């Protein structure tokens, strides 16, 4: 019998919001309950979705990112970051960070504590892989991090004059200089809950072009960068916890192990 091959269609075009919908990564964005005020306290959760470049297969939710903003004073704010990424064989990486930021246009980090840890298929932590960092940036008002930009971009004006140049401290650890963020414009979408979205673009060394998509109330709904998207989704945590359970179950089944 001839081997049946699964049809795979190349996506062909970049991951704009409508493409995310076409590929099933987004069904809709929740309508805001009341006005969103980016300058106040809020918590946003983003599903991390990756695309293999085919329409039918290889695209998946691989984690989530939760950012909680607390306004400390007129000059400072705190971001609590929590990111979970599911790897093959049910290994899970958790990164937690508490970042004190300037309330400047870049939300430049002043001080932070970061911890990376891994748990195995039995939910046991692997202490030999744990890593903690406590760092401080001095006099670096022109520096920010990718997570801080999730906050900062929501406070920027939708104006073609908006343009920032900075150095990036990706994941609060990897230095990537020569970054540029600017307002690109507003784009109509077919996504329920977002008739149109505003777009900021980030270009620079060490990153693929990154697009930040915001609704009229300045709420960040999606971040896309080549084959990766962060999608605003209050259900993210549940979706990923379910996925972790599924991959663990599947891993144990393949290994012939019983659940502890």
């Amino acid at each position: 019998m001839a081997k049946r091959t699964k049809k795979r269609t190349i996506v062909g075009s970049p991951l704009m919001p409508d493409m995310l919908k076409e590929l099933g990564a987004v069904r809709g964005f929740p309508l805001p309950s009341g006005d969103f005020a980016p300058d106040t306290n809020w918590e946003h959760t983003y599903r991390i979705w990756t695309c293999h470049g085919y329409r039918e297969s290889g695209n998946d939710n691989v984690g989530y990112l939760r950012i909680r903003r607390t306004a400390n004073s007129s000059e400072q704010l705190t971001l609590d970051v929590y990111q979970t990424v599911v790897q093959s064989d049910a290994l899970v990486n958790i990164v937690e960070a508490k970042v004190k930021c300037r309330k400047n246009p870049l939300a430049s980090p002043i001080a932070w504590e970061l911890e990376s840890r891994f748990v195995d298929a039995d939910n046991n932590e692997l202490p030999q892989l744990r890593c903690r960092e406590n760092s401080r940036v001095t006099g670096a008002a022109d520096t920010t991090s990718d997570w801080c930009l999730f906050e900062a971009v929501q406070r920027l004006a939708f104006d073609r004059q908006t343009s920032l140049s900075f150095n990036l401290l990706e994941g609060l650890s990897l230095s990537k200089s020569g970054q540029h963020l600017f307002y690109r414009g507003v784009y109509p979408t077919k996504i329920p809950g977002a008739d149109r979205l505003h777009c900021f673009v980030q270009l620079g060394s060490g990153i693929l072009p990154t697009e930040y998509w915001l609704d009229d109330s300045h709420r960040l709904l999606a971040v896309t960068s080549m084959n990766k998207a962060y999608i605003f989704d209050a259900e993210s945590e549940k979706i990923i916890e379910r996925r972790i359970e599924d991959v663990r179950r599947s891993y144990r089944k393949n290994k012939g192990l019983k659940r502890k």
Partner: protein
Amino acid sequence: MSDGRRQKRQSSDLLSRREFVKLGGSAVAIMSGGVLTNKDAGARRARQPKPKNILIIITDQQHIDTIAAGGCHHVRTPALDRLTKRSVSFAQSYTPNPLCSPARSAVLTGRTSSECGVHVNGRSIRSDIPNLGQWFSEQTDYETFYAGKWHLPRTYTGNIPGFKVINTGIGGFGYLCDTVMSRACQGFLRNWSKRKPFLLVASFMQPHDICEWLRLNMENPGRLRYPELAGELPELPDNFQFDENEPEAIRRRRAGNEPFRGKAKWNKEHWRYYRWSYYRNIEHLDAEIGRILQALEDRGHTNDTLVVLTSDHGEGMAHHQMVRKSSFYDEAVKVPLLFAWPGHISENRTDTTHLVSGLDIMPTLCDFAGIRAPANMRGVSLRAALEGNGGLTRDFIVSEVSSNTGRMVRTQGYKYITYRKDPVEQLFDMKNDPGETKNLATSSQHASTLAEHEKLLKHWERRLDVAPKVPNTDAWWYLERS
């Protein structure tokens, strides 16, 4: 084929004395298995210093000319620059096979991909050939660890023979995968007891994300997606055009690639944007490598660790209008190969003379670890060349591809390419035509050169112990043209 028939065939294929002299004395090494025999080898190994630790960095799809310190003007690669400055880097370094799994099988065993039984992606290494982890676990005190892409057969797995897997990676997505993997390596290095020697393989996915980029940018938008980049786009290479009369395998590969599959053919700007994007993936890779090297330094291991960096294969980069891999053009088949061990290996030196192969990594590491290499290595130890104590007596290297149908022989002067059952051969004068633009295979002036290279290949093939079930093997025994 019966043994008698095979012996007869081998006998008739032996090099003549004249040909032997022409090739140089290194033919002895080649004919005796690629390993220079030395009675004192064991004693010499025991006397030489050993690195306390070994860190092997494998990247995925890294073009050889992608390091700023190596002369690439399109990237910022501070981590690779630092590593380059304390390394010997080989400018004539070739992968044993310009495809992921086959290349990895060869690099990690020192045997060709067809011998390993990994002629295509997603196959296991034949069980009677030990991989680096298995060999070092048996023969040395190094504890062997692996992080990231494996692909033999599973791409990402917690189960790799001979290694304790500290991180599995995530299928297909370098940007996320490498970040998590390098964090795991960082944690490992920071927490590792300083007293115990380790061998760690950190196997990155990047810059392989260019494959996803190609699928997500296949359609030529007709204008630059980010006009702000117009002044930054790298120029097209000099050998952007291609020869219409190439072997069919190459023509088919090109036609199947995204630049030729979309609704509209790519314009030059889109090609240049592809090159620009590839370089950004390189920079991402660089930063993640930097995280690991920094952790090594933070723990005071820089001076007692032998660091090796290589890639499974290169990237087309628009040369000959190729993207991705699986061709024998230099862009796909040449790979970075760096060795660093401060105080023991020359620093900041580019070796432009020696032809080296990923097959050499296993015997080289065995040499540094003070152990004999497994039997039938197809590569040689580079230790003497790295320490500045002499050169390699080797005249050619071989690479294979396309499900055991394609072979490349690279000598100092020429590159010869042949595919089974394809009458089109390629011969390039690599000194006068490094861009591989003029195929000399049909030039009567180069007939003897072609014949010499065919003969080299014939002798190489005859030594191989190709794994059962690898297709197209018999054809290589005879090397008869169809």
